[in-house]
């Protein structure tokens, strides 16, 4: 039985607990939050054996095999390091760390201790994301990836947005990359997975939307366009927007033979054939083919739902399960370390160019719930 612990008992911790409880062969031995009441509420609502308000005490008393870090990003590095040093494998929620050098340090530490780490890029493990990966590996795109487009939008509305925009001391504002750092890693990770070089060129156009400017915002960058290119010729566009409608979460990947369109919100995957039909056939047949594919997507989604495997966080369950399996069987973790580092490196490059990173002073480290 794999012993699991969670540090940080905010909103995202609920998702972790609920998905871990669906996995056979593991148990949650402890949860921890520096606010004891937060740890206690998690303990009271779920079958968890103990709760703590001090991470080191928990690590030493509960002796978990795996620790999930679900605190705000600025504490990820210190807590993951502590957990590794105490002998636990570590799953770190996104963003993995604030800086690439911290990501590298964690991975080096894990490898030196014979332990494993992974990052919470769970969107890459949904049914459609896995299907897309299979198609790419089977050569549907052709011999190489030519271009990718990743959209990761975020509607600034509701209580979270009001708190962020209204509170000049909000914890997201204290992140070096501010709002971008907290949300873009899913979208960047989709691109990083299919890049082949270690240091792609990153060009950034960033701005504060007129909408936010009207609200007096001068700090939160909410419109971001990134061009990523590598020497092999592969290019990618990354778009983050708070204004674009529909608020897309999608990924398009094109090779020299065909392309694939993934829509995360609708859980649809569409294959684009590279060849064209002759004459007017190109006007009539592709719509039919697309209609057939969308019908297939509908049927697949219904089937997955009926099989009780269409949870909102099914990607997270798959990633956690794969990570645990990699620990038990001694096989590579589900997300290659080079990919985690590449995401961190691209994000570093973005924040350097957006000017949202004023300095590299290390912020106060604490373990608190992510609200």
């Amino acid at each position, binding site marked *: 039985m794999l012993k699991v612990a969670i540090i940080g*008992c*905010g909103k995202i911790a609920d998702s972790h607990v609920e998905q871990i409880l669906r996995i056979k062969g593991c148990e949650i031995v402890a949860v921890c939050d520096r606010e004891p*009441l937060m740890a206690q509420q998690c303990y009271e609502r779920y079958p968890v054996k103990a709760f703590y308000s001090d991470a080191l005490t928990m690590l030493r008393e509960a002796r978990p095999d795996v620790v999930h870090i679900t605190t705000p990003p600025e504490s990820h590095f210190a807590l993951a390091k502590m957990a590794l040093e105490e002998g636990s494998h570590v799953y770190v929620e996104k963003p993995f760390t604030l800086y690439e050098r911290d990501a590298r340090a964690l991975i080096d530490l894990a490898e030196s201790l014979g332990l494993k780490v992974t990052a919470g890029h769970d969107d890459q493990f949904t049914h459609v994301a896995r299907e897309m990966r299979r198609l790419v590996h089977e050569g549907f795109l052709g011999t190489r990836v030519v271009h990718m487009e990743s959209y990761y939008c975020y509607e600034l509305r509701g209580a979270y947005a009001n708190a962020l925009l*209204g*509170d000049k001391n909000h914890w997201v504002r204290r992140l070096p990359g501010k709002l971008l750092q907290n949300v873009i890693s899913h979208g960047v990770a989709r691109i990083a997975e299919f890049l082949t070089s270690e240091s792609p060129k990153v060009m950034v156009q960033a701005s504060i939307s007129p909408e936010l400017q009207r609200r007096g915002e001068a700090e939160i960058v909410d419109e971001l366009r990134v061009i990523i290119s590598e020497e092999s010729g592969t290019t990618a566009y990354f778009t983050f927007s708070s204004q674009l409608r529909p608020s897309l979460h999608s990924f398009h990947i094109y090779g020299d033979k065909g392309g694939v369109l993934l829509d995360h919100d609708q859980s649809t995957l569409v294959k684009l054939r590279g060849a064209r039909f002759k004459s007017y056939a190109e006007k009539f047949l592709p719509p039919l083919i697309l209609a057939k594919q969308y019908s297939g997507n509908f049927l697949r989604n219904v089937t997955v739902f009926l099989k*009780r495997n269409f949870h909102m966080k099914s990607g997270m369950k798959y990633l956690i399960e794969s990570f645990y399996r990699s620990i038990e069987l001694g096989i590579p973790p589900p997300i290659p370390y080079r990919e985690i580092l590449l995401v961190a490196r691209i994000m570093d490059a973005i924040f350097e160019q957006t000017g949202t990173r004023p300095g590299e002073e290390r912020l106060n480290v604490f373990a608190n719930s992510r609200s």
Partner: protein
Amino acid sequence: MIPDSGSEFIRQDDLILVTGAAGFVGLRVIHNLLERGYHRIRCFVRPSSSASEIVSLIGTGQFPGLHIYRGNLLSHEDCRRAVQDVAVVIHLAAGRGEKSVPDAFLNSVVTTRNLLDACADQQGIRRVVHVSSFAVYSNAEPGQRLLCESGEIEKHPELRGEAYCFAKTKQEEIARKMQVERKIPSVILRPGVVYGPGNLAISGRVGIDTFGVFLHMGGSNRIPLSYVDNCAEAVVLAALTPGIDGEIFNVVDDDLPTSREFLRNYKRNVKRFRSIRIPKAGSYLLCWLWERYSTWSEGQLPPVFNRRRWNSLWRKTTYSNQKIAQVLGWKQVVPTKAAMDHYFEACRAADHA
């Protein structure tokens, strides 16, 4: 409401702290206090709140004792400074958390603990008023039809599938615990459905529109409405009345409409929309099936409909305001008919905007 001359217990020049002051009920509480001549009010609002109405009040120059205090109840220091020199604390601030239990808990329970910690360390606080909710009642006792203050509290709020219920139940729990352990003179109010301009949503007790069509679940049930001004009156009386420490009061209006009457009047006065009447047995069955499916599917559908929630929202129940009327002398300042007219008027205005 009759202007107050103050009492020996709370004088008109005593300082009163109102948390959640810029909120729906908070603003009415401030108006009520000012009308009674309680002019020294510290309005605790979030840093992100515009608090425009309070700013306007201050701008008139008529209320020199009215101040805005911007802070975060998650900060011990903000709480400590907020309660300084205060005689009464009216604690209205709470987090609904939408669908997140941790968010609701953090912004209701942790904040309340912080505020009460600060109160316990502060000399001279004579009353803390906690504003809770009907959401804390289980309403599941066999044979019980009249919901009064002695009604059973939800023993397993975590199973209700409702972040607000969990947070409010735990908030009350910690308030009662600290009242005893730290000797904080407290009163708890449990309003029903607080409505009026500022909160125009149709209560879930009437029905739900989750599935794209309005399912009318309430039928002939009385809806435990509390018009915002009537609720504010109760809050202020709970703050000013001596000798009621440790008491709990339900806050609900007289002449409550049935769900059917409410919906009919809403459609007549605001806008027409399609609704489907779900009989009691049907709504219970829906909740039971949803609960079973949620368990069987390991939460593929979250357990937002379940039998506990059915008991709380849709079980046939009547309500009493006898205690608050007798002990606090509370009277409905806005009659239900007039209150509904104000509400519908505000709904119409919002709908046309």
